[in-house]
């Protein structure tokens, strides 16, 4: 294995950050110029949104269910089992819904984007597109970014709802809680700031998933091995970025809202 000097490595990383920032900036800038690829955006919305629906529903349901199970034993010790609905809805809406949906969609779609664009890159299809006078960032990147941001927003809402439903199943069937009490607690505990926090995050996460997926795809070099490497890197980088961004966005929103 070839050893790289620390300064060269730092330069490489800095260059990668610069390239990523330029791509992310262009993907937003393209929204204000022509042409706009509505058909491509709708196609991507179908792939990202409808395509991810099943995994998001399953993840949301089982997360809500296990949350109810895990918290019930602690709540029971304090005689507060009736608060299960509140715990599940607050946790799902503020944190688990957006983050887990983001991670699942990243696993499914950041990898998909990286492999698709990576394959196009190594087979010169991206160069062919540029040679035909079409800007790949307008045709390929911006539609994916728009679709990911919009669809992740709605997928998060679905995940939150299904998660609270999963908690409800456990609360009524396993913990024998009153259904009306569960839903009342779940609904009444939610304030505007919780919903705002829960629905601001997917906008950031969707942007990260699409831009990171496209960046690694368009940076793929070296045939099928390069495409495989780009795919793995896209999933790892987007997942880590989602978790890190989640911390900072939460911190900012807590400071801003409260």
């Amino acid at each position, binding site marked *: 294995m070839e050893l790289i000097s620390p300064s060269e490595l730092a330069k490489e990383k800095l260059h990668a950050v610069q390239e990523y920032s330029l791509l992310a900036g262009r993907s937003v800038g393209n929204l204000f110029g022509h042409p706009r690829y509505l058909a491509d955006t709708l196609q991507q919305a179908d792939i990202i949104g409808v395509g991810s629906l099943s995994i998001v529903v399953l993840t949301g349901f089982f997360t809500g269910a296990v949350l109810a199970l895990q918290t019930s034993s602690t709540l029971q010790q304090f005689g507060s089992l009736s608060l299960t609905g509140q715990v599940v809805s607050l946790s799902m809406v503020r944190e688990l819904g957006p983050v887990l949906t983001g991670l699942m969609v990243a696993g499914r779609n950041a990898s998909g984007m990286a492999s698709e664009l990576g394959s*196009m890159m190594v*087979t*010169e*299809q991206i*160069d*062919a*597109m*540029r040679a035909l*006078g*079409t800007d790949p960032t307008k045709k390929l990147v911006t539609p994916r970014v728009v679709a990911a941001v919009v669809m992740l927003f709605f997928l998060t809402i679905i995940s939150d709802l299904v998660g609270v439903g999963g908690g409800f199943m456990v609360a009524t069937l396993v913990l024998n809680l009153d259904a009306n009490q569960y839903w009342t607690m779940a609904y009444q505990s939610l304030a505007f700031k919780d919903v705002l926090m829960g629905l601001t995050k997917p906008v950031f996460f969707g942007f990260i998933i699409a831009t990171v997926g496209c960046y690694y795809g368009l940076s793929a070099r070296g045939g099928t091995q390069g495409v495989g490497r780009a795919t793995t890197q896209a999933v790892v980088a987007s997942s880590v970025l989602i978790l890190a961004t989640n911390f900072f966005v939460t911190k900012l929103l807590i400071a801003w809202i409260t």
Partner: protein
Amino acid sequence: MSTTLSPPRSAAASTAEQRGAIITFEDVAIEFEEKMVLDGVSFDLKQGETKCLLGIAGAGKTTILKLVLGLIKPDRGRITVLGEDVSAMPEEELFDLRRRIGMVFQESALFDSLTVEENVAFRLMEESNLPEEEIHRRVVEVLRFVELEHTLSKVPSELSGGMRRRVAIARAMVSEPEILLYDSPTGGLDPITSTTIIELIVKQRDVYKTSSLMVSHRLQDGFMMASHYFDTAANEMRPLALASRTDVHTTFLVLRDGKVIFDGTLAELAASRDEYIREYIA
């Protein structure tokens, strides 16, 4: 009072136009990973001329085509294409220029998720407001030129290597570009299919008279192009008679280690006393 200012044109671009050149390379150099790929390359491509770029693998032939399109930038020197200095143009401005140039990639580079019709129509659908019927008519017309009008609804994976190359030629010429660039159009094909592709390029050259650069590592491709013409009446390629005065406007450029070692006609190439060239054409 308002005045319209035209963009400043470089002195090099004006000089190139005066020479009748539509592509000019002046002392162009580029290196990849500390390896000099092109080193001081200079040449002109004149209007209506077809130039065959010859050289061994890694000589920098494909790099020249990518430089013409502005897909990569030179480290040194100036490249003028259709009066524009592509070595100094930003990517955004290059898209307009690229629409006036057609490129056939080495491995065809067809969009594998699109059908043959969508591949060929790609540029027309992107850049114009042509009605669908008109786009379809032009696609069928250009596919008929490459004798593949029956493959409209097929996807590239259903085509043979030679058919893919012909679709790539159709895609490059559908918008009637002013320059055509061929990157090893016969690479990896059997001799019979290679001849079919060369016949198509000769047909394109003699029917539409488009200026072109053709990269090849097969000497016989260039020789065939320089020694044949397309007979439109018979719809086939025919050899030029020895005493023929027909000028097929085909010249050769030989690269060695990133430098131009020959730029001239077939007769001059055959008469060259350069040892490397003699060995290369032997």
